């Protein structure tokens, strides 16, 4: 008992109610991860032709479920938990009112359940509901209204979460006048400002166009407009996933390595740059969209290249912080210090492998970002190959590694098996290396993405770095390893939650080598950054949006709605009408011809 009293209190000891909310959010995240992994392996085996127990007709349902559950539910539930931890920990004060906290958690849970039901209902014809619109929900693909309503409720939940953290920070500021914003809170606040700006577009797209359209209140939408609004949100959302991972790399990884963050000011600069630059680049997802002038695409490409800067700054700062830890552990030499790092710790190895994969993702990302070279890989499986390195590994693997580090401090239960954890993160790396490599290589052969049966009769893909079938096998093996890795992760976390409690699990974070006192005060001027971010967004989007609307109107020119079905009587009537019209025209021509003779 005395040892327990002496031990430093863990997060759950200090803030039990907040820890409960964080655990609830993370359980939501892990549930989504489990479902996403199941749909993932089904797709992997299906599209490679190794096992097709389900009809190809259901492929879009599996793909939508895989995408939405993983990139919306798994990532965002985890990050709201992480952000709550970061704000409470770095301000060292409880949230103002946990009723509000439970409210936003409830809204997110209800919203995601609604969206999830609308997607899963697509598997059965007994319920007249489906949402096989994929994660991007492009019009004219149309989902059941429940899909869009659920998304709206979910996103409003995240807005309330942001307000909850801002209010807690404002209360802290009143109690600590003149103090710099603690780094982790600074990261949360800048990320949330970016999120507010980004989600305005998707809220407009859903509330003004897609939801009324799916309810039948308006006839048609302008697909280019709703796509553009989607990507206004769709690119910053990748930073919404990534910035929590960056937060773990900046603030937790150096500590696990035995060191300290190299530079607090550089970390702040990076987060400000992401706030400014992550939104005015969305058009780089639309390089092949007609209806947007090439000049706007070029501006978007230039902004995107600037966006590489904060990631390169991160590579420097994080690696330097880890190197500092290695030197403190006695590491020497130009590369020899790498051996001194705690590679047996799953949290460390997971985050380092995630960072390494992100560096590889940077290579394919630069191809994607180039206006001309993007044409080679557009709509091929290269693109999923790329984002399985970024969100699928840099983010997902960092979150899993972060969970190994954080979960014991949220539960007072030590991780059930660090050895299984280590095997799990290494398996993820190997599985993803195989799967993503095969996807990139197939993409260069022209194999399309989002396709249940990418093999075509009478057509063979050209040979390059291995045949189509060989790459399929590599893809399937990689996907299977990833599934096994997910099962190990979930099992480890579940068993940990049943393990006996222990003391001494607190892991306090050290301050940076170069602290906030070295950072210019202007970095904490959030109003200034909001202003500049809005100006940049206006510059990047005002003219393209005006052009899209003036070309084909706010509600489009009446494009059809998909999924559509052919109404047999109407088709027959139309065919008959066409024949009658044709015969009449011939007769009229003949008669008028006679008269003009």
């Amino acid at each position, binding site marked *: 008992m005395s040892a327990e009293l002496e031990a430093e209190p863990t997060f759950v000891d200090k803030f039990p109610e907040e820890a409960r909310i964080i655990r609830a959010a993370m359980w939501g995240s892990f549930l989504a991860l489990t479902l996403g992994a199941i749909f993932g392996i089904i797709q992997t085996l299906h599209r490679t032709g190794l096992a097709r127990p389900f009809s190809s007709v259901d492929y879009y349902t599996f793909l939508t479920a895989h995408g939405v559950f993983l990139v919306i539910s798994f990532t965002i539930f985890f990050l709201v938990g992480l952000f709550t931890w970061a704000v409470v920990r770095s301000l060292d004060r409880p949230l103002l009112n946990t009723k509000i906290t439970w409210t936003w958690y409830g809204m997110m849970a209800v919203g995601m359940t609604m969206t999830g039901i609308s997607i899963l209902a697509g598997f059965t014809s007994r319920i007249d509901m489906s949402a096989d619109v994929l994660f991007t929900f492009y019009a004219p693909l149309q989902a059941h209204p429940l899909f869009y309503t659920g998304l709206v409720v979910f996103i409003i939940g995240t807005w309330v979460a942001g307000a909850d953290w801002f209010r807690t920070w404002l209360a802290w500021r009143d109690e600590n006048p003149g103090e710099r914003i603690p780094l982790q809170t600074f990261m949360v606040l800048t990320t949330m400002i970016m999120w507010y700006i980004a989600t305005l577009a998707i809220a407009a797209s859903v509330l003004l166009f897609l939801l009324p359209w799916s309810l039948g209140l308006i006839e048609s939408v302008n697909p280019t407009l709703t796509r553009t609004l989607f990507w206004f949100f769709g690119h910053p959302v990748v930073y919404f996933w990534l910035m929590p991972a960056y937060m773990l790399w900046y603030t937790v990884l150096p500590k696990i390595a*035995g060191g300290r963050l190299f530079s607090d000011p550089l970390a702040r600069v990076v987060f400000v740059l992401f706030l400014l630059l992550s939104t005015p680049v969305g058009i780089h997802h639309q390089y092949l969209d007609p209806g947007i002038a090439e000049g706007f695409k070029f501006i978007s490409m230039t902004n995107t290249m600037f966006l590489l800067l904060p990631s390169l700054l991160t590579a420097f700062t994080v690696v330097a912080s880890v190197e500092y830890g290695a030197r*403190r552990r006695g590491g020497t030499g130009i*590369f020899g210090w790498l051996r001194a790092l705690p590679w047996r*710790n799953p949290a460390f190895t997971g985050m380092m492998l995630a960072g390494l994969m992100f560096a590889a993702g940077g290579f394919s990302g630069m191809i994607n970002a180039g206006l001309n070279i993007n044409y080679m890989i557009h709509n091929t499986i290269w693109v999923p190959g790329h984002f399985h390195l970024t969100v699928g590994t840099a983010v997902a693997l960092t979150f899993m590694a972060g969970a190994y580090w954080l979960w014991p401090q949220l539960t007072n239960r030590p991780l059930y098996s660090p050895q299984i954890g280590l095997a799990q993160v290494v398996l993820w790396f190997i599985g993803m290396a195989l799967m993503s490599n095969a996807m990139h290589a197939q993409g260069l052969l022209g194999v399309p993405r989002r396709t249940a049966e990418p093999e075509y009769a009478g057509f063979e893909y050209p040979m390059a770095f291995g045949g189509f079938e060989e790459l399929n096998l590599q893809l399937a093996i990689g996907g299977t390893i990833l599934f096994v890795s997910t099962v190990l992760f979930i099992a480890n976390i579940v068993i940990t939650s049943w393990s006996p409690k222990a003391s001494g699990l607190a892991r306090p974070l050290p301050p940076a080598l170069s602290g*906030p006192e070295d950072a210019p005060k202007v970095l904490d001027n959030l109003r200034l950054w909001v202003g500049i971010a809005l100006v940049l967004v206006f510059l990047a989007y005002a003219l393209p949006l005006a052009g899209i609307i003036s070309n084909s109107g706010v509600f489009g020119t009446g494009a059809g709605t998909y999924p559509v079905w052919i109404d047999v009587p109407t088709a027959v009537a139309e065919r008959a009408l066409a024949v009658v019209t044709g015969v009449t025209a011939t007769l009229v021509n003949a008669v008028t011809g006679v008269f003009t003779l």
Partner: protein
Amino acid sequence: MAGSETASTVTGEMNPPGDGEPIHEDAETEEFDPIGTLALIMTYFAILVIAWVYVYFIEFLSRDLTVIG
């Protein structure tokens, strides 16, 4: 940093079980020069440059010119 982060946490590194290598506390006062980081980043750029050259050979020289319009 927040008031919660006191100087005692600077040296208060507690590694998880099985990861208890000694930490050279005296090294902390030394001037830290991240040359290892520079070496890794230079390696990254070298790979990047090689990859770009590779793309040029694979994607352009091995195929016929595509002229649109």
